[in-house]
């Protein structure tokens, strides 16, 4: 094995790293350079303007408004998704009743898992269009349901007071299924003996979840956290397709702002790149921070 080590490493690592550098890292580096120019995107002329784009960004109310929405998403989407994901996964893994003999899932767990996972199989575009019809203010499922029980219904995506929450709900809905499966897989890796011991000690289900399952799942939860945080900082596709940031910018997010600046209402690629650079640092800081805050002692099963 030893003398064959280097060819193996070179064959399997160098091409992907080169591809990664070429297709991911180099565009990023270019974005940094472009963000310091006034490039308009349809000619080769670009004049360096230093940090002028960032200065303009600082005074751009629309960008701040979008950022504010991202911050709300960042605060809510991961928490809601993880709590719901944990809850469903726990129910599926140990919600069933089998006396004190052991821990089992609810009946039909496999079916539920498939149902939960379903949104993950659909393309985000389909999810957005689907929910746009659900939120249809006259024929939509939600409105009809509200009217059926005699409640007044808002215009959902048409009202700045509700549009944002409607989009947020879809974000959580489309993500939960994946984390149910992820947490479920992690739970099934926890040795049964631990649960048996806990049961013998007479712990309640909630205590079991809080004191045993959660600590054992901590690494997985942390990964989920980071991914969801990044998702919350982006949220581009759903917002663009469902509301395009409206009404009156109430659902705007920073990704939509960037897209709109480059391809939508204007063609300011330098400025859009500056937004991209800010997004990059935000995402990176959030990822690093959430890992730092979540640091805990690791538990080994062995």
């Amino acid at each position, binding site marked *: 094995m030893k003398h064959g080590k280097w060819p193996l490493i070179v064959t399997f690592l160098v091409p992907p790293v080169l591809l990664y550098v070429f*297709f*991911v890292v180099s*565009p*990023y580096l*270019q*974005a940094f*350079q*472009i963000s310091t120019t006034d490039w*308009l*995107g*349809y*000619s*080769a*002329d*670009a004049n360096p303007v230093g940090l002028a784009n960032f200065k*303009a960004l600082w005074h751009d109310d629309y960008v701040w408004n979008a950022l504010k929405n991202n911050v709300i998403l960042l605060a809510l989407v991961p928490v809601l998704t993880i709590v719901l994901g944990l809850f469903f996964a726990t129910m599926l893994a140990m919600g069933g009743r089998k006396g004190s003999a052991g821990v089992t899932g609810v009946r039909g767990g496999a079916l539920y898992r498939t149902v939960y996972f379903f949104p993950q199989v659909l393309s985000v575009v389909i999810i957005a269009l689907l929910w*746009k019809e659900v*939120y*249809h*203010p*006259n024929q939509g499922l939600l*409105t009809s349901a509200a009217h059926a029980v005699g409640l007044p219904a808002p*215009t959902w*995506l*048409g*009202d*700045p007071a509700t549009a944002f929450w409607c989009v947020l709900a879809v974000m959580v809905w489309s993500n939960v299924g994946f984390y149910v499966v992820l947490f479920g897989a992690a739970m099934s890796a926890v040795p049964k003996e631990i649960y048996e011991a806990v049961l013998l000690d007479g712990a309640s289900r909630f205590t079991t979840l809080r004191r045993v399952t959660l600590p054992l799942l901590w*690494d997985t939860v*942390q*990964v989920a956290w*980071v*991914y969801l945080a*990044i998702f919350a*900082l*982006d949220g*581009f596709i759903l917002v663009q397709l469902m*509301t395009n940031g*409206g*009404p*009156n*910018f109430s659902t705007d997010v920073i990704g939509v702002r*960037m897209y*709109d600046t*480059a*391809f*939508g*209402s*204007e*063609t*300011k690629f330098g*400025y859009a*790149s500056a937004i*991209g650079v800010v*997004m*990059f640092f935000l*995402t*990176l800081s959030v*990822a690093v921070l959430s*890992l730092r805050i979540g640091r805990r002692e*690791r538990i080994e099963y062995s």
Partner: protein
Amino acid sequence: MNRRDILRRSAAAGLLATPAAGLLSGCATGGGGDKNDAETYQGTKSAENPLGVKEDAPLEVVIFGGGFGEEYAKAHEAMYTEKYPKAKIKHSATQEISKTLQPRFVDGSPPDVVNNSGTGQIDFNGLVSQNALADLGDLLAAPSLDVPGKTVKDTLLPGAVEIGSYDGKFLVLNYTYTAYGIWYSNKLFTERKWEYAKTWDEHIALCKQIKAAGIAPWTYAGLHPRYMSWPLISTAIKLGGPSVALALDNLEPNAWKSDAMKAAADAWHQIVKDKYILEGSPGLDHKQSQTAWCQGKAAFISCGSWLESEQKDVTPAGFNMTIAPTPSLGSGDKLPFEAIRGTAGEPFMVPAKARNVAGGLEYFRTMLSKKGAQDFTKKVASLTVVAGSSEGVELPYGLNTVVKALDASGANGFNWVYNNYYRKLERNLVDAACGEFFSGRIGPAEFLDQCQKGADSIAQDSSIKKYKRAA
């Protein structure tokens, strides 16, 4: 998996999960501008070949693959090769004009003809300010392909050249002719014995009658509320004359708060106040609202003349959609009731760095021939900027009413172009204000304030090139 792995992976995920940022620059920079200059195709000009097409030069055409499809373009290309059999035509269609062509503009190797349309359209302010478009002046001066004794310019409908001109230079050929007005179902109106109202007071009275009959008088695309800015501004222009539009286009101070605009906003606020708008409209997109209208849930909708072909699949038989001008505010109106907003649309352009600029212009000359225009109208049921080209072509019901409305409007037709000059102003700012106004969250004064604020922010933004037009 230990923590270090997670950290490493997460950092990588951080890089991967925000692909949008990388997307911007993936195709950027590094292109050199002028490398193709030596290879442009130019033939010798003659009476037969006024634009100097090199007859064996290849021609590349990129079409927006939208509602009109691409068959009409293939027909035009066939007409082109009839005249220049040695020319090889490369044809392609895409929905994403901007993303597809952006790298090629930067690289200095754009196609020869571009149909720059759709939501993925390239902002014209950006293109024009970077001198990326060829001057189409020669085309206008060239003789028409099949109308003897007339230049291409002579064959065009009024307004067709103005709308494609920036600082006096004709850069964009808008090929279709679009009327913007208020639509209703003639079938519904005949059945109920309603008559389209010519004045605003009558319109409000009619709305009351319609509502009493259990139908909502109005609906609109709440997710694209700028559709409602069209009748509102039209009302103002009919009251105050074309100078109202000129002031908006030239970003004059307080143009949005002129007396005519105030009167128009006050008038239109009436349909909001009296709840003459289909409930839930603020939450509908354009397709959903148009469909509600086709289903007879609302009587009026504001749209352009593409409405009929867009709604083809869901319009009930015998619906007989009819376009009408906005009602007059009163006897003081400067323009008659018949005046309607008519404008050329569906922009085509020849990039300045195209290798076969002469071929591109010649291709336009083919499109603007009587034969080319009639073929287009037959294929896609839309009018063109070529005068009289719909004669002898059987038109669908709605388009027929458009032709009649445009005829009646005649020289009183009007238009504005601020949305072409400053896409952001209409698409983002006026749009947001309309959403607030027509859903009743703000009143007329706040509405105009918000629009004015948007216009001022464009006027003050030194990174946006400004254009002026004369009356």
